[in-house]
């Protein structure tokens, strides 16, 4: 069934390396391999979850798709209403147009809003940028947006410090929606929120998706949220995707040992069933010098000789 659906974004061998420079002449002595060869198709209208530990490159991948950090290699083919273009090869002008379609919701609702600007000030820029000039129009659109995220119209002239964290996150979502995007990257959008607020924002994101036919790339480390919200899920480890599957398959039958360990590590709110926990030894290796072969082999409980030399397909 999935094959019939339209591919919105297709990633092929995407790599993002950050150079490490040393010495007076800033010689490049190595690379941090943040994203190391990602192949993934994202279909229109789906929510795809991207999970992994901190430092595994999830956020870098998100930013690389938006061209906020330069990528080193690979193709990112985005479907602009029938016309497929590589995001990496867009001209500055085309990229500006593309930014209307691709947007991001940031993690921290405190630092992503300018404290010196009121809500009108923060939200008017993207609108002005994409052609709405009259102040009355802008005011009306911002009012509508605030209502779409369950805030009151009258809040337009308030400042960020007057809002709680959940409200701020919703303002961030409103700003993202202001240009009518079709693809939104939610970078840990609910991780910084309090438990009782989290559910509000998750429900809002779901509502907006249905109303506006959005596609989400949901980056998070919280597996229970991903399971609830996404259709498919990709597990990342050290710059690579180690498992990509439908939600049900992945949760009922994880195949990669890392996914198994990750699933068993999550504390579950229930009294009767206690999973046998697989405790991984050690820490995530440095992406500067990833282990040879499968990047997970030094911590893997099912490591074989071949894992040390060859990267599995």
């Amino acid at each position, binding site marked *: 069934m999935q094959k019939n659906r339209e591919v919105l974004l297709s990633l092929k061998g995407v790599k993002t390396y950050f150079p490490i420079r040393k010495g007076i002449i800033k010689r490049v002595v190595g690379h941090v391999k943040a994203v190391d060869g990602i192949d993934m198709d994202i279909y229109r209208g789906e929510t795809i979850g991207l999970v992994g530990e901190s430092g595994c490159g999830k956020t870098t991948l998100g930013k690389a798709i938006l061209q906020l950090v330069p990528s080193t290699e690979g193709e990112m083919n985005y479907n602009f209403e029938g016309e497929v273009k590589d995001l990496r090869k867009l001209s500055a002008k085309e990229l500006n147009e593309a930014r209307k379609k691709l947007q991001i919701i940031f993690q921290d609702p405190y630092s992503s809003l300018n404290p010196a600007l009121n809500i009108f000030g923060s939200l008017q820029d993207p609108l002005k940028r994409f052609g709405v000039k009259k102040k009355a129009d802008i005011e009306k659109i911002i009012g509508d947006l605030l209502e779409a995220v369950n805030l009151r119209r009258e809040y337009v002239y308030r400042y960020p410090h007057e809002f709680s964290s959940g409200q701020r996150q919703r303002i961030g979502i409103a700003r993202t929606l202001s240009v009518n995007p079709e693809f939104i990257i939610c970078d840990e959008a609910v991780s910084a929120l309090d438990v009782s607020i989290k*559910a509000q924002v998750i429900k809002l994101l779901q509502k907006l998706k249905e109303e506006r036919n959005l596609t989400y790339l949901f980056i998070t480390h919280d597996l229970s949220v991903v*399971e609830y919200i996404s259709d498919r899920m990709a597990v990342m480890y050290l710059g690579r995707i180690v498992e990509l599957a439908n939600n049900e398959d992945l949760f009922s039958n994880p195949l990669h040992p890392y996914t198994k360990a990750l699933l068993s590590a999550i504390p579950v709110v229930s009294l009767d069933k206690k999973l046998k926990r697989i405790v991984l030894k050690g820490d995530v290796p440095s992406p500067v010098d990833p282990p040879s072969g499968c990047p997970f082999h030094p911590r893997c409980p099912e490591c074989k000789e071949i894992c040390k030399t060859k990267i599995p397909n």
Partner: protein
Amino acid sequence: MNSDVVVSVKNIKIFFYTDQRCNKAVNGVSFDIKKGKTLCIVGESGCGKSVTALSIMRLLPELSRIEEGEIIFNSEDGPVAIQELTKNGKAMRKIRGSEIAMVFQDPMTSLNPVFTVGFQIMENLLNHNNMSKREARKETIGLLKKMGISLPEERIDEYPHQYSGGMRQRAMIAMAMSCNPKVLIADEPTTSLDVTIQAQIFELMDRLKKEYETAIVLITHDMGVVAELADDIAVMYMGNIIESGTLKEVLSNPAHPYTKALLESIPVLGKGKNQKLEPIRGTTPDPFNRPKGCQFEPRCDYAYEKCKDMPADELLGGEHVVKCWKSQEVLKDAKK
């Protein structure tokens, strides 16, 4: 009096004074910390869980005052009233770090970056025990080894920035455990860590509890962590413990609307997309402008006129205590 109770907190009130306003951060909280048991204090940010923990350590900031109540620590030489000791007095300094120790939330900021990890752990040992430096060093290496840090002989001379997040937190726990404390207070010890590292830390804490019979107070907002580790739970909301009891009593029969709502508002792993998420409406009230009576009343689905008065604690059998006028109704709904 139960001999297993190590620290007993009775009706403590802690107020903060700023700008001629008064924030009643903790408003009458009582609980017991028992030997070899884990007490979990759960609540949203700003509900007073950390302040309660800091008050036991007498580490509260200048602006705050313990207004009422008592904290009794049952030491080997008889009970000590912690709230009456001077903050930096000899008696308090003797207890802090050796009898009651604390693991802080953020391992990045709670270690001093200009001293080696080993030096910081040794400091505690040298202060509280009659030890030579050589003995302390040996002890520290042993501690690091026990915490599962590889190559402790080399790692002891490294600086915090050379440690990863999980290792730093383990070093913090090593520091807290160095004098075999009777009580270990852990204030969100795994919030800034990854799930796989979190599992390692939990494993470690569980072992400590079993081996040394340490009483653990775990402060968290994650219900999953609670279900995993706790023996007893206390749910806090806006400065009050609104429900407490053993793990089973509270999780299977939540009697307070807030506990019930909290359990319904988090997605549970393994239930997939079919589960219903029920967000709690509204937000936590402004601490300077609190509702009268029950603090949860403006957000509560069960609220009625009587909720304008603060309900008293009601014992539901066993150790299950709840602070709600309509607890019977909530219980009935929870069973459905």
